[in-house]
């Protein structure tokens, strides 16, 4: 495993950082360094590679911004505005990936009238690299989903749904990889249990498979293929009070996943959660609310030099506005 030392020395580092904070006094870290991890300030640009992973989830056909009369989110979100932000990021960054964690469909009359056509067309235009299926993406049945697929120029990754006895057989992928400079990124998708959540008519003979079993299988396979970064796009939900499989449970039970981009529970986080996996390494669990109110942005820094002594995961800097 090439990056087994990934972020697993957090404790000693945090102590270093605390003393650093003391020396800096009142000077805000974010103000001093912007978004660049502090040890990389000492590195030359060619010493590290930055991969920016952007994500949305549960956009629920929110094509237009929320109306100004909306109580909770007046005037927020909207595809055209998100597209502008993404374009700006692409101008600044060399390596950008863009994912959606499902429930693209349902929630505004755009879906009732056009069945998801516009959602997928616009996502294609915005350069989405992959998405997974949420339970509401089954709302017009397997046929309704299949009918819209030609409007998407990106793959749907559904690793734990066995569609082989359905019309979606061969319409989605189990996994895919991306090459960004020297960095290889492996991505797969996990869906939520459909029974009791989606009408049987709408999922038919789709077989739901254990997401932990499949997730670990996918991640191991992708690691063996030399992936430096392994991402699960999940519609399992962030966490539950009961024993249902969630992203947090998956993270704990995993051994090769670096990032879980979640959905389903419409969870707003101040920062991605850090979970220790079976190997004692950190896994990031993210989710970006819903409706396109937030765009998740996680920057991964790769280096050939061994900075591990002073490296730690740093998700504490919260930048709401660019």
């Amino acid at each position, binding site marked *: 495993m090439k990056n087994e030392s990934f*972020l697993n020395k957090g404790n000693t580092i945090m102590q270093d950082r605390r003393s650093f904070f003391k020396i800096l006094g009142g000077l805000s870290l974010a103000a001093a360094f912007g978004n660049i991890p502090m040890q990389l300030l000492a590195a030359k640009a060619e010493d*590290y590679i930055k991969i920016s992973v952007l994500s949305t989830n549960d956009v629920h056909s929110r094509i237009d911004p929320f109306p100004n009369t909306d109580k909770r989110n007046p005037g*927020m979100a909207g595809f055209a505005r998100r597209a502008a*932000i993404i374009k700006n990021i692409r101008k600044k960054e060399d390596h950008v990936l863009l994912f959606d964690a499902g429930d693209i469909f*349902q929630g505004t*009359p755009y879906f009732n009238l056009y069945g998801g056509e516009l959602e997928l067309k616009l996502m294609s235009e915005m350069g989405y690299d992959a998405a997974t299926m949420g339970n509401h993406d089954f709302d017009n049945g397997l046929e309704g989903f299949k009918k819209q697929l030609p409007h998407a120029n990106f793959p749907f990754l559904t690793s734990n749904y066995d569609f082989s006895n359905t019309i979606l057989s061969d319409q989605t992928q189990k996994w895919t990889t991306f090459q960004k400079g020297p960095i290889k990124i492996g991505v797969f998708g996990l869906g939520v249990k459909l029974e009791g959540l989606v009408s049987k008519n709408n999922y038919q003979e789709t077989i739901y498979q254990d997401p932990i079993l499949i997730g670990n299988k996918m991640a191991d396979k992708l690691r063996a293929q030399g992936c430096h970064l392994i991402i699960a796009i999940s519609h399992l939900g962030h966490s539950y009070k009961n024993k249902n499989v969630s992203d947090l449970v998956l993270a704990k039970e995993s051994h090769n996943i670096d990032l879980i981009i979640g959905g389903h529970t419409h969870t*707003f986080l101040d920062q991605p959660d850090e979970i220790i996996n079976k190997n004692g390494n950190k896994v990031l669990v993210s989710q970006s609310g819903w409706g396109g109110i937030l765009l998740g942005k996680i920057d991964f820094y790769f280096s*050939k030099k061994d900075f591990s002594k002073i490296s730690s*995961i*740093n998700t504490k800097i919260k930048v709401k506005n660019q």
Partner: protein
Amino acid sequence: MYSKLLTALIISAFVTSCGQEKEWKLNNAIGNYLQVDFSNAIVQDSAILAEIAPFKQHLDSSMNIVIAQSEKEYFKKKPNGSLNNIVCDMVFDVITKRFDKSPYKPDLCLLNYGGLRRPLPKGDIMISDIYQLMPFQNESVICQLSGKQMNEMFQYLKKSNGQPIANMLITFTKDQLKSVTIGKLPYDSTKTYNVLTSDYTAKGGDKMNFFLKADTMVLCGSLLRDDMFTYIYNQKDKKLVASDEKRIIFE
């Protein structure tokens, strides 16, 4: 002074950390959530806006049509909410009239709380408001439930802290069912009741498994949403007033 200290620290950190050339490996990650609002991108992407425009125009002309007025804003709430009541009452009214002479005429209505997706706004109600409240293509169905299944339904109502219902009043004490009235009559456990619901819950959606055991399920031939439109269409003054009756009481 800070900057000198800082430089010294960074240099020492860099010197001690200079190792051998290796494979690329993951070193650090920073997560942010960018708010998609006016402060973030004043200019909307013009290509995307142009692509939306014809869809939006068509949608506005077919959906943003005022069909009724609402006295207040109606919200869903557990165990009782004005939105819970008005939606159930509208659908129940339309289906009981349609099935008036039928043996399947509904005795009560039970919908799922999760199916109510948006409040009904105050003032003008447009077609799009009804779509957003009830976006799913769920059909109205009637399930015949025996006493045993009714009892499971009561337990479900208790466990889930209430669901939208119509034509039924139910009271729970701390541990058990205290009383049930259906229509104007007390509940009779020897009787079979016709329960109006959606095909989603009738097939066990939201774990309403008691519906799966129903001997008879009758399709009403309409979507729940269309029943709401029918109700409004038949209403003379086009004013939507929700009942604030407490139908599920926990003592």
